[in-house]
């Protein structure tokens, strides 16, 4: 392993929450990354050499009815130990498998505590397979929404997408193992980024800025290659990576982080070549890159990418405030459609009036709040005419086959 760069070393704490988190942390401990403090928050004690913060019991029967207070109450006995452990951390990774009870309920709570200490809080979570029943999926989704609200950034690895990465005949046990390996690889990639001596170091503040500004869901992908063509191979792998939706995520990304790690033979020209190609893939994205040397890599080259998702996460709707949300919620950010005229501008009084009529009108009060916040589908049927079936010509992220006047929003009247 490489020598830690003492001057720029950051205190990186990793906490596994719940059973899945525990397994992941155990794997990370096995990697023996220096300068990494690991802990586990769970009901059952782990076997590895890591700090154990015990939880009393599974206090939450059903996440759907549990609210924040209940979780906090359950966490209260463990809180002093947790806070002591968190003290002095620069970066806190919260590792959890969402879908279970402990992970989904406590990961957001831990994130809140960690963020309160001023550390950069990142959630690394897996979401359940589709076959794991809808209840787990629902719990996972709720957990994810809450975690997103609490942490600086969330990097989610949907287990469902892993199915596409692996052979159909892989056993269930191996599938989970691969999922864990992917997540640990991602974690190790980020850790390396912060820890290894950099040819081109990533500034910690930049990283924090990137992650905090987005507040969006992130995806990550790692690719490795060796040999003379490794630069090109790595990029090809990344572009075809199922976790990046076959490269589509790159094109739509508002921001991306690239970490390139190679052996001592890594040249700047090679880094340049990789970055040039990746930059071309994610046009319009704010790309942050770092390159590092790891002695153990020999002629291998590993690229880890963390890509912010296209859409910015919606603010979480606090339950019970749906009515006010309807009145005051910020409009979802969406480019103006080119075909639909903008809705008539309403004065605030008019909105109140309309809302009042909706609340009382006809004696039929609509109780089902969420329906009121129905979103608009991105319905932009842009025809390409005779170029519909031809290979698109894309420059600067624009499909040039679409008529220019439509892309420029010219109104024909």
């Amino acid at each position: 392993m490489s020598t830690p760069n003492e001057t720029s070393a950051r205190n990186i704490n990793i906490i596994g929450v719940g059973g899945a988190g525990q397994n992941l942390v155990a794997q990370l401990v096995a990697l023996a990354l220096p300068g990494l403090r690991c802990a586990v928050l769970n009901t059952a004690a782990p076997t590895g050499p890591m700090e154990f913060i015990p939880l009393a019991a599974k206090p939450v029967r059903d996440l759907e009815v549990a609210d924040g207070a209940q979780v906090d109450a359950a966490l209260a006995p463990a809180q002093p130990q947790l806070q002591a452990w968190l003290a002095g951390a620069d970066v806190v990774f919260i590792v959890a498998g969402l879908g279970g009870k402990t992970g989904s309920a406590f990961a957001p709570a831990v994130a809140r505590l960690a963020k309160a200490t001023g550390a950069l809080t990142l959630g690394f979570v897996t979401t359940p397979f589709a076959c794991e029943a809808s209840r787990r999926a629902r719990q996972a989704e709720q957990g994810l929404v809450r975690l997103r609200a609490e942490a600086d950034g969330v990097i989610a690895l949907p287990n469902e997408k892993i199915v596409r990465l692996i052979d159909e005949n892989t056993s269930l046990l191996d599938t989970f193992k691969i999922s864990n390996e992917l997540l640990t690889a991602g974690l190790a990639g980020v850790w390396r980024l912060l820890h290894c001596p950099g040819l081109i170091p990533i500034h910690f503040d930049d990283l924090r800025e990137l992650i905090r500004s987005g507040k969006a869901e992130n995806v990550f992908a790692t690719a490795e290659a060796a040999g003379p063509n490794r630069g090109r191979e790595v990029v090809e792998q990344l572009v075809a990576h199922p976790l990046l939706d076959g490269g589509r995520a790159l094109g739509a990304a508002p921001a991306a982080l690239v970490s390139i790690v190679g052996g001592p033979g890594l040249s700047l020209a090679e880094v340049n070549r990789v970055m040039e190609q990746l930059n071309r893939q994610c046009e319009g994205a704010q790309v942050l890159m770092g390159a590092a040397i790891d002695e153990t890599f020999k002629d291998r080259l590993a690229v880890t990418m963390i890509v912010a998702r296209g859409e910015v996460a919606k603010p979480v709707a606090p339950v019970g405030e749906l009515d006010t949300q309807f009145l005051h919620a910020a409009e979802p950010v969406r480019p103006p459609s080119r075909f639909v005229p903008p809705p008539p501008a309403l004065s605030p009084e008019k909105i109140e009036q309309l809302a009042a009529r909706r609340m009382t009108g006809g004696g039929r009060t609509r109780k089902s709040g969420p329906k009121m916040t129905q979103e608009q589908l991105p319905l932009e049927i842009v025809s390409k005419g005779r170029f519909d079936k031809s290979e698109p010509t894309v420059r600067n992220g624009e499909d040039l086959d679409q008529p220019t006047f439509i892309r420029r929003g010219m109104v024909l009247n």
Partner: protein
Amino acid sequence: MFNQPSVIVGLEIGTSKVCAVVGERNAEGALNIIGVGQAKSRGVRKGEITDATAVEEDVRNAIVEAEQMANVEIRSVYLGVSGAHIRGFSNRGVHPVVSADREITAEDVQDVVKNAKAVNVPQENHILHAIRQHFLVDGQDRIINPVGMLGARLEVDVHVIHGNFNRLQNAIRIVKGMQLEVEDVVFNGLAASLALLTKEQKELGSLVIDLGGGTTDYAVSAGGIIQHTGVLAVGGDHVTNDLAIGLKIALGRAEGLKLEHGAALPDAAARGQTITIPGEVGLPAKTLNLDHLRRIMHLRLEEIFNLIGQDLERADMLGHLRGGIFLCGGGAHIPGIAKLAQDIFGLHVSVGKTNTISSLKSALDQPEFAAPIGLVKFGSLRARQRPKPSLLPFELGKTFDRLFSRIGA
């Protein structure tokens, strides 16, 4: 009859037309255009072949027409290619001079050019042209011919134009399938710039933009050499398509409107004016707003020039264009196009004339023939370098020559 080294044919399989131009070199070596054949192209989209059967038919028609007009039999052609897959980039190759006396030999020059060509081209791509720029000997710049000079390290800048091998091969196969030899494959932008630019303009630095049906090809010449090339897979077809969508008319009508009423600049006088297109069988009469038509066209053409401008800016070429900008291709016919380009680039813009060929019939001096005429020019330059492009194996050809001369005598 078996040997017609003086006849040179340029064939361009374009998106809107297939065009064959026949040139002849007279005894003094000057080039004459003696025939042209064209056919409407039906199997090409954005510069790339999408329907091989249709293309084959169109090529045959064009070739036959050219043969009739020039009264020669066409045996070989110089083939022009374009398409989004074609890329140009500049690269520097390095070669250490190893000989004991440090004298640079012709082999060293070959090696350094090979080195410069070798890198960065993807496996599936084929290098069309590698255009030598200046040499550097031990860091000394601007050396035209280093052979015989002394030095330890020879470098050369090369502009490499490469394209996808299979797509290039598609066009070549179609031509070969008609028992025609393909002498060479040439990038259309390069051919157009050969046809339009005089020596002085190349020296000063000029940009040639070929506004074709499916693609817009461009090439920058400066210091007498091609220094930058590019393809934008957007062309006149896109303008037509935009009009069809924007004005809600059929593509055929949009094409007609573009030719009749199109202009590159929005015109204050056009505001409020309408055009009425008469009804035909199956298509009702329609009244359209002329201003809309102009604005749709203006936006598209402006975008094309802007994208080219951005690319040249990235390549740091805009400062080299003292000779101005020359437009060719069918798009050069659009009224006001030169003015539009002038506004965008801030340089002198003119519609290019094929100046470089003597005794050109005025009917042929049209901007859309620039690329195929440039192909002929390319062929004549090539033939001057390689004086004997015999179709038959060397000895056999000689035997036939002797045989026929004896009969003739």
